């Protein structure tokens, strides 16, 4: 004798389909989540060690090369999707060394700053990649102007 479950088979199938769709949606979120990389060539000092900027570097992220080589004190923006990425940087002007690194961005980190000099200089990953927080906006000039009085009227 076999005991029959009180839950109808169709309900189990439907629940299974719904759960599968939820898992699929979560996977899509994980692999499709967009991140903005700010590639920065400004010189940087980490723990007293100075990493100087390079005159010209060619950068490619996930196999896509930037439109033009980056010079000193420049910042380029690249949009990528998913957590794992590969960055390849070639020093065009100097010794011609080439660095290839793979890095992971946490899913809920939207903007990331990548320091090219630190990466080329061999700094640890926690120093060349960091979440990017924009500076708070300055007070609007219009508010300052309201307090301005024409000296000629006094």
């Amino acid at each position: 004798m076999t005991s029959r479950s009180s839950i109808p088979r169709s309900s189990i199938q439907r629940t299974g389909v719904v759960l599968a769709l939820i898992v699929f949606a979560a996977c899509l979120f994980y692999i499709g989540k967009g991140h903005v990389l700010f590639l920065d060539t400004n010189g940087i000092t980490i723990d007293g060690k100075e990493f100087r900027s390079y005159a010209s570097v060619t950068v490619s992220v996930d196999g896509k090369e930037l439109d033009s080589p980056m010079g000193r004190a420049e910042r380029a923006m690249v949009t990528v999707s998913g957590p794992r990425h590969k960055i390849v940087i070639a020093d065009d002007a100097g010794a011609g060394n080439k660095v290839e690194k793979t890095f992971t961005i946490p899913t809920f980190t939207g903007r990331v700053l990548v320091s090219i000099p630190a990466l080329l200089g061999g700094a640890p990953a926690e120093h060349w990649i960091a979440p990017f927080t924009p500076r708070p906006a300055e007070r609007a000039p219009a508010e300052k102007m309201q307090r301005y009085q024409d000296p000629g009227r006094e």
Partner: protein
Amino acid sequence: MKRLRLFFIENAVVILFVILISIAIPASRLPGKFLLQEILTRLGRSSFLVIALLLPIMAGMGLNFGMVLGAMAGQIGLIFVMDWEIIGIPGLLLAMLISLPISIFLGWLCGSIMNRAKGREMVTGFILGFFMNGIYMLFALYAMGSIIPVMNPELLLSRGYGIRNVVDLISVRQALETFIPLRVAGLNIPVLNYLLIAGVSVFIVWFRKTKFGQDMRAAGQDRAVAGAAGIAVDRTRIIAVIVSTVLAGFGQIIFLQNLGTINTTNSHEQIGLFSIATLLIGGASVTKASIPNAFVGVVLFHLLFLVAPMAGKNLIGSAMLGEYFRQFVSYGVIAVALVLYEWKRLAQEENSRSRLWGGKADAL
């Protein structure tokens, strides 16, 4: 002679449009390659939406003006994806998944209401679209940002809640078109769009052949007979509307990703009339529609879209007049199709009556 007459009556709308386009293309002086590229792009953009209308016609519910409900669900999915910054094909798939439960619910609601308004499904769907538009507006312009958190401030109105009138779909723009790049004779072919359209066409053909599809056709031909044969007519009709609404949601996502922007407040409003006019121009009627009707309609309708303003400019001196003429003709075709349908129905009834009384049946 009678056959020829019948052919012209059956295909009056298509013939009218072919004649119009034959005049308008040379008058527009647009290059053939440009027209071909545009038609290839627009076939990939709009066909899915038009095919979404086929199942309710099979189920005898006429043209599903309620498809705007699915379009709203698709837009909600896209808005969420833009807020969460999901890029490319995963973004589109996620938008489709988000739209799925909303479309199913709205389709069920629409089908249930249509079951209470049998024989007046089209006008019911049309008015239901207006009703649901109010709820959509409440959702998009109030709930988003106040009740439902929106992380991306660029999506919000300056007051802090409500979605902006225009949402830029930059992260999913033309993701389908560029996924499999194919260039033939200088023309870009949106391969993935065509694969999706082929998939939904195969689904419709398969669906028609299933037991459920046969039930649907039986219910569409005669509700009373289908009911007497043991078919759950109401349930069948609800499922037809649900599938149509879900496909309309997916179709709207495909349509908008190609355009690259959502007009939050009225992208969905236009899509019902647009798709219905397209299907009718392709030779479909209120009771009979097929996949070729959808493709013929998209080609003819979009050709007129392309050439009418330029033809108007070259012939009359004003592109606006050409565009007004196109709008008048293309949306007037809905009225023409409905009048033709009613006229044919009355003629058939007259024929049946004549046969019953032994008279000569020549009303049509």
